[in-house]
């Protein structure tokens, strides 16, 4: 029994949501009542089981666990209240949930949990503009919550507002400079916006931080080749590419060619272990 508890604890630590496994582990514990072995962690386990049950759609289990939590922590507990909101959302009553969260926020404007649930609710209902507004006002207060900035980046991307998304991902990078995934995101946004010089540098940062990063090298090759294309055509007088593409701060031609070569080489190396069909596709792509 205690090994299940340990596993549940590890899943909590890594912040993963593995609803199926959590339920499978927790079911015997709950039925046999041996969950009390967890001591004070019992409540954390209950919360975890609740979230898993709601994820899996097992509302009765969720409601039963919620009863137990309610009996322990009472009406006024913020964490328990938002779980009620979650149940309303899961059973298809978003208006009830919204009312609950609005109430919680009125009573206490600093309540982070309710704020975040409200934003998620708006998002799930497709009210993106409102979700963005709420998130922006949340970030006005809590400017150091990089996960919120990341969420805002994705919201803006959904709305194709690239320069706003770029601003948000810059905030994320400012707070988490060593995470190569954020640099990758920034590189791709920059490429889409047409800032090829920034994109190239960011892609290079990705492959510096994460050796042989596939998306990183794809990006390097694409960007380097495109810049070479544009600068050569611009240099020769014929403006080939669209004029909004920014390549002013890009490296010189020789450097670009070396980078492109490096990217080709690494891509071939990365795919050297895969099937022949994949290799063929890669080679054809590389020739472009």
């Amino acid at each position, binding site marked *: 029994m205690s090994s299940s508890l340990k596993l549940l604890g590890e899943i909590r630590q890594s912040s993963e949501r593995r609803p199926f496994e959590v339920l499978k582990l927790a079911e015997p514990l709950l039925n046999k009542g041996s969950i009390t072995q967890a001591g004070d962690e019992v409540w954390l386990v209950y919360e975890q089981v609740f979230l898993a049950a709601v994820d899996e759609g097992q509302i009765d289990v969720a409601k039963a666990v919620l009863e137990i939590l309610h009996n322990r922590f009472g009406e006024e507990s913020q964490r328990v209240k938002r779980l009620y909101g979650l149940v309303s959302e899961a059973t298809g009553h978003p208006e009830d949930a919204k009312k609950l969260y609005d109430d919680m926020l009125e009573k206490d404007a600093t309540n982070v949990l309710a704020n975040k649930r409200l934003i998620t609710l708006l998002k799930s209902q497709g009210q993106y503009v409102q979700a963005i507004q709420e998130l922006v006002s949340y970030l006005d207060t809590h400017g150091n919550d990089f996960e919120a900035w990341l969420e805002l980046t994705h919201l803006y991307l959904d709305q194709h507002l690239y320069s706003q998304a770029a601003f948000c991902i810059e905030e994320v*990078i400012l707070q988490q400079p060593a995470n190569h995934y954020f640099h990758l995101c920034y590189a791709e946004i920059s490429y889409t916006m047409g800032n090829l010089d920034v994109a190239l540098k960011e892609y290079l940062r990705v492959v510096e931080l994460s050796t042989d990063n596939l998306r990183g090298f794809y990006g390097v090759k694409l960007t380097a080749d495109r810049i070479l294309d544009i600068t050569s055509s611009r240099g020769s007088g014929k403006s080939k590419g669209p004029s909004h593409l920014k390549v002013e701060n890009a490296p010189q031609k020789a450097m670009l060619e*070396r980078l492109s070569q490096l990217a080709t080489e690494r891509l071939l190396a990365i795919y050297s272990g895969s099937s022949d069909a994949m290799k063929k596709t890669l080679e054809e792509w590389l020739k472009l």
Partner: protein
Amino acid sequence: MGGLIESTDQTMFLDPAIRNWVLFPITVIMVLVGVFRHQLTILMTGQPAKPDIKEIRQGKALMRGHTLAQNNPYIPTAAFIERKKYLCQAYEDGTYLKDKTSKEKSPTDLMADPKNMEAMMDGMKKQMMGIIPQTLIMGWIQFFFSGFILIKLPFPLGLRFKQMLQSGIMTPNMDVRWVSSISWYFINLFGLRGVFALLLGGENSADGTRDMTAMSTMGAMGQQPGQPQDFNKQFLGMKDNLSIIYHEWDLENIEQRVLVKYGKQARIFKSTRK
């Protein structure tokens, strides 16, 4: 010749009654008082003041400035300049201040703010809780247990300690290693920290040494402990910090770094040509 050499080993026999009635009681009393203090402090400490949303905003705005100053090489120059301009302007205008009018307040006004009063009272109460028992016990020991030797220290000390540790007994020749009860009190003060950690868990209020450091810092700082922070000053300070930063984008020579990393180039050339 014999008179010039200090006698090294004075052996005295102490009444075992001293051990039973002084040594152990002092320790026991100190432990009990410590536990009592700890529980009392828990009772007296109110809920930590719930921060108001404007206060949080204020604090976080300062943190943003700090993060920007710290991690500025990781974003492009244009992005940095944009943020620097915005934050410096905001700090100067007091956009993030909890209470816009408070820009003009002097420290005394800030202290009059009711919330800050509570925080300061709390701090002072805690200090009282520390000082009073210490003083009481010391006085009690001086009163009851002075005038005789209690223990022999296993290590030698300089002559100056004689006055403090043998306060009740005026003898010119007795080794400094024989000390009175007050020194046993000091030994307990430092030694019982471990015992309290076992009994009461890590963060306990029964620790005597913390009060001593608190008393010395109070004298050194010369201002009320727990004085509310003046955010306007901090904002202006941060603004100055930000304005003098010379931004160097970390990714300026990233091309060379990547080539070196993958073995295409031996080392990085510091050239002005890219």
